[in-house]
């Protein structure tokens, strides 16, 4: 197997006494579409911040595209080809949608005219074309999520880290957004997404990591992971798996 595009080895980070991420190792293969799931507060967004350089790990290494990038500044990682989006959207509110996306495009394009033109092309891909000249502050939640995605996509990333781009959307909007994410992956961009919408994880992801209380507790295909006892317990509470199983046949409590 070739070297993975992104490889975390033994990553840990604590905030005071809170161990937000503990000894996490994972490898994202180039060209894959995978997901990071876990209950609220599991440390998923912290892990994203550690990958992209917004936070420095206390221990462990991050390798991206063959380089050790542990603790390297996010703007340098973006230049290398790793771009993240934010769960709490961060539009440049005073600027239009076109100008917002152009900031991302400027990573590879110096000319303003060319960057604005590229912004238009990217907006088309994510379905933002009709809103190009609106101020970003006028967008709906769904629009802002698309903008977040478009701005990241405009940097022409090799690896796109999507932090809950589907959260807060209604079922119709989710159904519209899923093919967009699929399309990005099909165009050759490696995608790792944090997602709570299980319908999307089951349909989109080839590989899933499950994080709970800062630790990886399971990984595999979506089907394997969702039937894993530890995963069920992490979401529904200690002992749930056992109780569920007792209904069928008696067995010992795991661990």
């Amino acid at each position, binding site marked *: 197997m070739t070297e993975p595009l992104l490889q975390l080895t033994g990553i840990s980070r604590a905030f005071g006494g809170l161990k937000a991420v503990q000894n996490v190792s994972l490898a994202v293969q180039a060209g894959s579409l995978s997901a990071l799931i876990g209950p609220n507060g599991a440390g998923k967004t912290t892990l994203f911040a550690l990958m992209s350089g917004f936070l420095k790990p206390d221990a462990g290494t991050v390798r991206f595209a063959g380089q050790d990038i542990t603790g390297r500044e996010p703007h340098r990682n973006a230049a290398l080809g790793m771009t993240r989006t934010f769960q709490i959207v961060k539009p*440049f509110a005073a600027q239009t949608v076109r100008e917002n996306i*152009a900031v*991302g495009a400027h990573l590879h394009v110096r000319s303003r005219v060319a960057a604005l033109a590229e912004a238009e092309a990217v907006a088309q891909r994510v379905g933002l074309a009709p809103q190009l000249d609106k101020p970003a502050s006028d967008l709906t939640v769904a629009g802002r999520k698309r903008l977040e995605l478009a*701005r990241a996509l405009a940097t022409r990333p090799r690896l796109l880290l999507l932090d809950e781009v589907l959260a807060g959307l209604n079922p119709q909007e989710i159904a519209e957004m899923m093919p967009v994410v699929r399309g990005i992956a099909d165009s050759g961009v490696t995608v790792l997404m944090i997602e709570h919408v299980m319908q999307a994880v089951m349909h989109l992801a080839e590989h899933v990591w499950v994080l709970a209380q800062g630790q990886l507790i399971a990984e595999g295909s979506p089907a394997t992971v969702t039937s894993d006892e530890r995963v069920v317990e992490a979401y529904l509470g200690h002992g749930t798996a056992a109780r569920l199983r007792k209904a069928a046949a008696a067995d010992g409590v795991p661990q």
Partner: protein
Amino acid sequence: MSSGTKQLAGIALFALVIGCVPLFTKSGVTLNFVMMALYATLIAQAWNILGGFGGQFSFGHALFFGTGAYVQAIAQLQGGVNAWAALPMAVAGSALVGMFVGALTFRYGLKGSYFALVTLAFAEVFRILATSVPFTGGGVGLMVPLRESAANMQFASRAGYLWVVLAMVVVALLVTWWLRNGRFGAYLQAVRDNEDAARAVGVNPFRVKLAAIGLSAAFMGAAGAFYVQVFQYIDAGIAYGSVTSVEALVAAIVGGMGTLWGPVLGAAVLHLLADVTRNLFGELPGINMVIYGTVLVLIVIFMPRGVAGLGVSVRQSWNAKGRRHD
């Protein structure tokens, strides 16, 4: 014509019209008014680069103004340098001080009121230093001898000074135009609107802000040098006192932050107001500051986008009305 080209044409027209004023009037009062309004435009535009486009609100822009003024005076007095040759030194000196302050504050991520307080403190420190060290003339100040000649950047008529400051304002307008139509400006506004989002898409906020404060300080330095040439005198209070800092930010905010023409409009409006009040109240000390304060409060409450934003709002509501009638 694209909006960028239109703006360039606007700058050319502005330069032409204002540049022709001395050809039509010999009135010292009029020329002095235009000259001082242009000078106010220059410092407002300088503040606008960092405050309006970069979102870093400095309360101590006098720091860069004063540094430019002192470099201009000292280079001539102690270095025997020609006034025209001293000007780039003043600009560079101010830019360096700007980048020094920027490197210290932005390295530690100071923003908002903390950044404002640090710039204010730096201006005060420089004011106190300037009164204590010998080469600034201490409390007595520095006097540049009168040697009226265009070669010494000293003019018999106000027209000469008007053209010099107009040239500086035009350069400032061109730089502002470039901020609105280039990558650096896009990055600067991105950092202003959301620093983390900018970092995620490859912007280095430290470098962008450092360049912005250097650029902003350079124009303040040019204004300081110009001040010394016009009044041939500088002391610590004039150089580093808060009057210049306040004038720069009030004109920019009143006119419209982050716009091309806002600081021009703001400076013109404030100078007209100051002239009117001077006619009404005479030379009551501090009355201009009272006026500035009042105007600032009213603008911030009723026209947060400034005088330049008023045109945009009117156009938008007009368009919205048009759509509703369709």
